[in-house]
């Protein structure tokens, strides 16, 4: 379909993106680790339908509950009483909150200074408590796309649900490992213009999120899409396995809604599931507004000016900006690519802040460890754990202070990997460079007025193998400047 056609049919679409954050859990101190080994225990629970204040039971809740199933929760030593709904939530995880603030700032949002953590009723068993804790932390943001600004309606910080393991007759098995992992939900306004714009926006949001501290890998980001055309009811589509299917799914959903309208009917407002071929199937009715009430076990959430400023100061930049910056520091395209690929950006930053010299740091982080690993036939990970930041900043420091030749660097690192103490490893069997320096000075003093090249010839004759040409030039220059 062409852009004009989308406009003509009154196409409206907005995204809801859920992204896991890279910290411990949101309301307890358990690690955010997914387990694939056998669970240590399994606990059976039932959930009950709870009427709201007015006695009215939410339609979505009712639908979920009709099945009347037993829920079995599988736990590990990496889950605690909080996930089991056997202990009140702890104070909100500050690290997760900071990451969420960071993300809100990256999307140009206004942060909400005072907010209340809410309980959103969910009784399909995926939350042991019967609700999901969620808090609105920011609103009114935007990001840029080829079709102009896409506005962000709001950003929420919430806990992830249990992982569905299997369903049997009357029983559903969930794993507690995922329950409580912090998520941000980013919901856009219905600003998306067409199918390819939906995909572009989803990818862009993903790119922005990945510049912050988020979890990577399958299942760590989930995209939901809200979509309608003129006179049709809004439909929420979940379960996109990859953004490539989005475009096709949008087109097919538009056609589906159109077809229903053309037959003189109106589509149901409902939640649908995206199938691998881009088709969708009914999942459940749209949740109503009766499902949100305060989390009474927690205090109001306050985000102070100071906190926002602190996060602002350390705000990560987008990959493109970082790339440009690295290029200006003298790194090659190839090196920049590897830095991202092997996620060495933080290490690079740290080492660069000590002594500069981007190309050398690139080599230290990305080239030498690999070469040594393949020569020694050892794991790269193992080599990298030996050649850690302490070792690398030590050798950089020595080079900076002229206590180590660039040419000897790899040999020194090999000695460290072979088990030598770093202090010992840099003592290569050579006369002290200080001694050589003195001798060179003496030589120049004795024969004043020669050209640099002439001095070079003399020096390299006397000290060959003990000093590199580069170093000799440096020392000569030092002396001549005096």
């Amino acid at each position, binding site marked *: 379909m062409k852009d004009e056609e989308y406009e003509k049919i009154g196409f409206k679409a907005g995204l809801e993106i859920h992204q896991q954050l890279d910290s411990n859990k949101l309301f307890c101190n358990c690690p955010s680790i997914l387990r694939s080994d056998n669970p240590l225990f399994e*606990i*059976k*629970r*039932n*959930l*009950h*339908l*709870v*009427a709201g*204040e*007015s*006695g*009215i039971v939410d339609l979505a*809740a009712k639908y979920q*509950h009709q099945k009347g199933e037993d829920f079995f929760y599988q736990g590990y030593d990496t889950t605690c*009483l909080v996930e*089991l*709904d*056997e*202990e*009140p939530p702890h104070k909100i995880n500050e690290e997760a909150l900071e990451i969420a603030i960071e993300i809100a700032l990256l999307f140009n949002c206004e942060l*909400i*200074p*005072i*907010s*209340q953590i*809410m*309980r*959103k*009723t969910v*009784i399909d068993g995926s939350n*042991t*408590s*019967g*609700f999901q804790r*969620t*808090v*609105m932390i920011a609103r009114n943001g935007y990001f840029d796309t080829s079709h102009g600004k896409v506005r962000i309606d*709001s950003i*929420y910080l919430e806990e992830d649900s249990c992982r569905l393991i299997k369903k049997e007759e009357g029983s559903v098995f969930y794993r507690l490992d995922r329950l409580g992992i912090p998520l941000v939900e980013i919901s856009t306004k219905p600003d998306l213009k067409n199918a390819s714009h939906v995909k572009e926006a989803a990818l862009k949001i993903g790119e922005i999120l990945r510049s912050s501290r988020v979890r990577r890998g399958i299942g760590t980001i989930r995209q939901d899409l809200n979509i309608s055309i003129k006179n049709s009811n809004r439909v929420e589509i979940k379960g996109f396995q990859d953004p490539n299917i989005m475009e096709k799914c949008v087109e097919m959903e538009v056609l589906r809604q159109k077809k229903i309208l053309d037959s003189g009917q109106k589509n149901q407002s409902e939640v649908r599931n995206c199938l691998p071929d881009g088709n969708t199937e009914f999942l459940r009715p749209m949740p109503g*507004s009766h*499902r*949100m*009430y*305060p989390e*009474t076990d927690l205090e*109001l959430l306050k985000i102070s000016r100071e906190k926002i400023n602190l996060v602002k100061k350390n705000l990560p930049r987008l990959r493109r900006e970082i790339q440009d910056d690295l290029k200006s520091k003298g790194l090659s395209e190839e090196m920049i690519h590897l830095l991202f690929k092997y996620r060495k950006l933080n290490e690079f930053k740290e080492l660069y802040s000590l002594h500069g010299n981007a190309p050398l740091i690139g080599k230290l982080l990305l080239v030498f460890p690999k070469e040594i690993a393949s020569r020694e036939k050892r794991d790269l990970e193992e080599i990298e754990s030996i050649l850690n930041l302490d070792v690398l900043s030590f050798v950089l420091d020595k080079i900076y202070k002229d206590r180590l030749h660039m040419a000897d660097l790899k040999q020194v690192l090999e000695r460290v990997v072979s088990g030598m103490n770093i202090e010992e490893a840099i003592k290569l069997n050579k006369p002290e460079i200080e001694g050589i320096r003195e001798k060179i000075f003496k030589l120049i003093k004795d024969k004043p007025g020669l050209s640099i090249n002439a001095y070079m010839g003399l020096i390299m004759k006397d000290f060959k193998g003990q000093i590199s040409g580069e170093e000799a030039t440096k020392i000569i220059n030092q002396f001549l400047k005096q």
Partner: protein
Amino acid sequence: MEKQKFDSGDFVEISLSKEKYRGTYLESPESGLILLKLENGYNIGFNKKDILKINKIKNFKEEKKLDLNFTENLDKPGIVLIVTGGTISSRLNPGKGGVDFVESPEDLFLYYPEIFNLVNVKKIEVPFMKGSENLDFKDWQKIAKVCGNYLNDSSISGIIILHGTDSLHFTSAALSFFIRDLNKPVVLTYSQRSTDRASSDARLNLECAAKVATSNIAEVVVVGHANSEDYFCLGIPGTKVRKLHSSKRDAFKPVNRKAFLEISRDSIKKISDYKLIDKNRKSFLDFKFEEKIGLIKFYPGQDPKILDYYVKNGYKGLIIEMLGLGQIATSGSRNSWIKKLKEIQKKGIFVCATSQTIFGRTNPYVYVTGRELVDSGVLYLEDMLSETALVKLGWVLGHKDWDIRKKMLENFSWEINDRIEFE
């Protein structure tokens, strides 16, 4: 901010210096703040001083409640529900944004429809509504009095008391002593997870409580989750029960005795001995109580001079929760309690010993210190729980003509178990 009166639930527009927000006005748990429920259901807060103006757009309109059919279930056994407070009697008040107590029996029906199908709830009594941390012996007496109205009423199979958890084991001990010749089930039950949650433990606890209240047991029983799962509950003797966890569903455990019953939704299983119902037995109340009693937890190095406080303030009896088998600092210590204990007993304070270990029996004869304490006049209370001992001491001392020493060691309601089985 302009002074204007708003009620929780009013739909308003709040103007700040730069922006406006619309939503439902809510009172904040913190002064100086107000909360607004936005149309997406989320609540956000504002400092009152940042607000330029609030305009009321629509008055609060109470949602019409559904008609609830709260009718008697004549073919089912009759029970009385006594509601005293606690989490199990609470509900969420969205207007205030917090939890408070249910206002009417209809609210209970809303939250616990199952129990009204299982039994015929003939009467709902509300002697008071309190968190159990705020109770005292007068409240125990009030509950006993309400029970007393129905004990000898043959149309009532049993009584269910909804109670807060924190001091529930004190109340259950008190009722075990206050109600004499008990002839039907008196069941206390609770919840650890609030009733607004789909995961609340209250439903299973209540269903099992209803089963016990219509069974053949004539005891004061605490009914609640047996473990973290929603499979079954235990029915534990009121004098042998203690809250042993601050938050778990199975917080209440039997101590130094087995539970009476194991109850699931479809079965009720006897685990240990109990008295049976008897229509010919007439129950009566005896809730005389001496308030001047105290419970002291001993710690190493504690100065015995704290006992002077109890003498000065006219106390009549003390439970000292001792270490191990029943040890506190005696003659080998820098701060021996022996002299002071003799002194306060001479001045009329009755002193008993229980153990901080919770599980196991006290025994003064294993170590010299214990014998020293016995010689000083301290009475060791076998395997009795400290909380039960405190309540019993108040009850026994309330009877001016009773032989205190003899009555403290008389087994009224399973509070002393002379054989603790291996588990």
